[in-house]
């Protein structure tokens, strides 16, 4: 049997999986810290994608470079969203938060989607860089530059977030708040401010994911829910609130999807993720990397 196409498939699975991972870490962070399930996360990725696309179209700046602009932009947007909307959800008890955040963020999805249609039309956009389609070929396996760069950017983004959460005072405060917000407030931690920062960080992660989507996939107003679903599958696979775990689970999903075309064919690839989702919920509800 010729292994080359299988390996090629796995390599692409790895690339796709890294994108799933970075798409999921923001969702995972926000849910883990404040029990807010933000189904508008995919729409935030959509906004990140548009930001990259327009910066590229107007100023010719490569999305891999303009990330230093899109990430702060999305961070600021996250702050505004938290202050204007989610602040009112996190005042509720933890049980109420999940229900209410679902309703609010689903509404937000619709709003963001329609505003995007209004502003930028429903056309599908994509960034085509001068080097799109170029790449390395090693032993007959293709490594397109955009995909390799995406993998690196995703990994660096996750690594930086992880380092922030484990090595800095503010990051540890976020983890402490996610473990027990009341105990955190007894340490002098301003819980509402911590929630705000965590939400903005999660939105910034959506900015990274959006930039990567713009170079490898399509950006359109309606892509939000599909990305939310992917991110949700990954978060459940990983276990809630585990950042490195979410990235690893994203890669796992990418690889499993890639291999699944040999079993169920390419047209059922999407089903495999959902099947994995159900299996994990049945057999290991705390997720592959979850603690509880």
């Amino acid at each position, binding site marked *: 049997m010729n292994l080359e196409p299988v390996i090629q498939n796995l390599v692409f699975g790895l690339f796709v999986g890294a994108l799933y991972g970075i798409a999921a870490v923001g969702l995972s962070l926000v849910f883990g810290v404040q029990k807010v399930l933000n189904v508008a996360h995919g729409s935030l990725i959509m906004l990140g994608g548009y930001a990259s696309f327009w910066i590229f179209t107007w100023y010719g700046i490569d999305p891999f470079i303009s990330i230093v602009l899109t990430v702060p932009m999305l961070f600021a947007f996250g702050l505004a969203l938290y202050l204007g909307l989610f602040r009112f959800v996190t005042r509720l008890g933890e049980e109420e938060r999940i229900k209410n955040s679902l309703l609010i963020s689903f509404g937000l999805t619709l709003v963001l989607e329609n505003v995007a249609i209004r502003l930028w039309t429903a056309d599908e956009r994509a960034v085509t860089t001068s080097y799109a389609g170029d790449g390395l070929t090693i032993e007959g396996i293709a490594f397109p530059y955009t995909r390799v760069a995406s993998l690196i950017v995703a990994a660096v983004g996750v690594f930086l977030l992880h380092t922030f959460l484990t090595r800095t*005072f503010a990051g540890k405060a976020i983890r*402490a708040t996610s473990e027990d917000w*009341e*105990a955190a*407030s*007894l340490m*002098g*931690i301003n819980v509402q401010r911590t929630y705000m920062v965590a939400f903005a960080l999660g939105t910034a992660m959506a900015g990274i994911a959006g930039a990567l989507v713009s170079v490898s996939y399509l950006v359109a107003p309606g892509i939000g829910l599909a990305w939310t679903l992917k991110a949700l599958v990954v978060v459940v696979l990983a276990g809630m609130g585990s950042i490195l775990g979410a990235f690893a689970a994203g890669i796992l999903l990418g690889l499993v999807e890639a291999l699944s075309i040999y079993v169920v064919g390419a047209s059922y690839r999407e089903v495999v993720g959902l099947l994995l989702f159900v299996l994990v919920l049945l057999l290991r509800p705390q997720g592959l990397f979850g603690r509880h």
Partner: protein
Amino acid sequence: MLELEADDIYVSYGDLTALWGVTLRVQQGEIVVLIGPNGAGKTTLMRAVAGLQPPYRGRILLDGEPVHQFRSHQLVERGVVLIPEGRRLFAGMTVLENLTMGAYTPKARKTLDETLRRVYTVFPVLAERRDQAAGTLSGGQQQMLAIGRALMAQPRLLLLDEPSLGLAPLVVGDIFDVLRQINQDGVTVLLAEQNARMALELAHRAYILEEGRVSGEGTAQEMLQADHVRRAYLGQVSPLESAPEA
């Protein structure tokens, strides 16, 4: 100087009122203990003072300043630190990370290294286990960590809610010794405790809380001799005496 005053406070959880006009005063340097049966409102009173459950009527004054609308993190900055019931450690974080979080306020952060050395002197076991997850410590060690974490905030008023809960009697003795030491170093202590005899032996003054109201107060000595207290709270031998040899 520090003085805490709860002035006729009412606290409720939704429709359920847990404290009905409680008045209490704690002065600089004191150890004051709240005794009373389960469900009497001891925890609620602690939570109200710490800013977790604000009273809907009445006032709480700290050095004469009304603080009952302050949130807990603002009270920590003013030196009021609660060790809640069940300790509430950050179980997935290391011992050192828990202690570091204790020194979150800007003021405490400045002297973090020095305070950490002091906490390690009081509880050497925490130094040995600094890189271990807090959730893997034994009950006694967890209580030590909870106290150590609170000391990191450099409290002026330390509130402890049932520190002896679930601990072996010998460990409880150690914990109370540490509390006495902390108090002698200048920290005022308000303690809610079911283990009335040990608590009264430690405290200067005591309040009895029953069904959400203060039903008695006095010096610890008076309490140890009062008929009502002896019957209701000291009647059975304390766990320290009844426990088998460890």
